[in-house]
């Protein structure tokens, strides 16, 4: 387990527990009551840390190397999954995955998400979760397939941004994202989008138009990453904490602004510490929400989607 700087008190306690257990085994002395006490302390410390996270700490959590990615959730939430590849045009983008999945062997779902790599080699293969136009076009192809057969769509969002590359521009990164926004808003099937890590800018929004846009508790969603914001507005990389604060990018802020439909609470300690539990929470959410959305007739659902996004913004109207 890796610990972030603000999780150090936790690390100290957990190391202590391990040491005591080791000693106990060697000396055959009963240490269970000491361990129990320390575990209580762990819980208390965890609660303290996690109920007082600042915005930058949330950003750090969203990027925790052990935080589950899309493929993890797919494997834990669904009973079956068949990955579908390619945009039928240029190639198969490895930074966005997707395919048919089954919820409890009862409900077929089209699941799509950004995928980051779990080790150095895979991170490169997945391009750090930064999709090229092909990724967005593959996503749209799968969404259209789902629409044709009346299957709901679930997207998992986790990207530091769409890839800013030469070929991405040649093949129309802007057009690909724009097309997805345009098409997703009128999809005839229920669409649920869940931010599971980083929700950076157009790269996130490109698979982020839904009837329900939810954020896992310890994630962020913004027009720009705190680092890039710092470099542009403060003209140095040093103000990322301040930028994170100013951007008001956490799930709490986003929910208060009405820019998302809700927060999915993570176990205290975060998804990286409790991945199985987090997957179960997501599963439960889908089991409840998919039927709710199907209960709304198609026209109303689309109308509500359009109205929701059309109402976003703040301005003054003078006389």
């Amino acid at each position: 387990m890796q610990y972030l700087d603000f999780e150090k008190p936790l690390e100290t306690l957990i190391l202590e527990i391990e040491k005591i257990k080791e000693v106990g085994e060697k000396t055959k002395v009963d240490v269970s009551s000491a361990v129990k006490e320390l575990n209580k302390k762990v819980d208390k410390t965890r609660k303290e840390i996690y109920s007082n996270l600042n915005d930058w700490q949330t950003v750090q959590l969203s990027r925790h190397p052990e935080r589950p990615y899309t493929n993890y959730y797919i494997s834990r939430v669904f009973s079956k999954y068949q990955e579908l590849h390619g945009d039928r045009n240029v190639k198969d983008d490895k930074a966005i995955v997707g395919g048919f999945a089954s919820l409890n062997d009862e409900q077929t779902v089209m699941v799509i998400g950004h995928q980051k790599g779990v080790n150095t080699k895979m991170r490169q293969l997945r391009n750090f979760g930064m999709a090229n136009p092909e990724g967005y076009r593959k996503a749209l192809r799968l969404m259209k397939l789902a629409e044709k057969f009346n299957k709901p769509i679930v997207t998992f969002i986790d990207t530091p941004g769409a890839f800013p590359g030469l070929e991405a521009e040649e093949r129309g990164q802007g057009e690909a994202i724009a097309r997805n926004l345009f098409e997703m808003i009128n999809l005839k099937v229920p669409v649920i989008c869940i931010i599971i890590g980083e929700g950076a800018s157009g790269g996130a929004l490109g698979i982020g138009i839904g009837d329900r846009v939810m954020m896992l508790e310890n994630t962020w969603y913004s027009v720009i990453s705190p680092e890039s914001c710092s470099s542009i507005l403060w003209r140095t990389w040093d103000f990322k904490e301040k930028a994170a604060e100013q951007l008001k990018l956490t799930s709490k802020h986003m929910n208060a602004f009405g820019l998302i439909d809700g927060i999915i609470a993570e176990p205290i300690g975060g998804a990286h510490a409790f991945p199985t539990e987090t997957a179960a929470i997501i599963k439960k959410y889908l089991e409840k929400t998919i039927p709710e959305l199907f209960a709304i007739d198609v026209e109303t659902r689309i109308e509500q989607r359009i109205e929701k996004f059309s109402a976003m913004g703040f301005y003054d109207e003078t006389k």
Partner: protein
Amino acid sequence: MPNGLPKTTKTMSSSTWFKRIKQGILTSTKEKKDVPDGLWFRCPGCKKTSTIDEIRDSFWVCPSCNHHNRIDAEEYFEFLYDEGVYELLFDNIVSKDKLGFVDLKKYKDRLVDAKKTSGLKDAMTVAVGEINGKKLVTAAMNFKFIGGSMGSVVGEKIARGIDYSIAHKLPFMIISKSGGARMMESAFSLMQMAKTSAKLTQLAKAKLPYISLMTDPTTGGVTASYAMLGDLNIAEPGALIGFAGPRVIKETIKKDLPEGFQTAEFLLEHGFLDFIVNRKELKQKLSDLIGYFE
């Protein structure tokens, strides 16, 4: 923010133009020459100078090298709409600072300063008028106003422009010119991409044409939403058009970018534009295009 135009152009006093138009007084080219003699315009392309009158009469296109200089909404309206007559729409919508955003400067102060230095209310101006007798609603961006950045007002004005087009069954055009999203409005700015795209689907359902004219520069969230969603995507020559900015791409791939990368000509070659239009021919082309849809 750089605009490409020298400071002297401010003496044109766009507000005077507005007043005249509001009073229904037609303006002729002669009357517009309210710039004192001896003001010169230096072309950023070829560095040659011409008088302000000359450059204005050639639609702010350099007579020597065809460089299309950056101009804002009113300058477009002035030569696109017949006799320079048009009605401004939704001009009472202005930005506010809901987030209390502060970087090196308060967003609140930025807005005040931008209004003062640009003489504009925001980065988007919407108007309706006739182009060779054909009615058209145009939403045009102002680079002068915080780099033409897309905030809530930009999105709302597009949304209302679309509503107006639908209500009056009129074709719709957006002239894009933007450095991208307005960071000081954070996710609200991001959501303008979703909002404008959603509204464009309503225009599409009403079977009304949408022409997207991309001008220098069209980047970021604007490119990744309404700019690329035209029934027709057209652009001015030499305009920088892209999702990521050239500097960011260069830093990412750690290579020099090929010459002409992300220009209008590059996009045409890669299949993302219908055609490139010289500003001098823009009015005629537009009225022709509207004709094709009729």
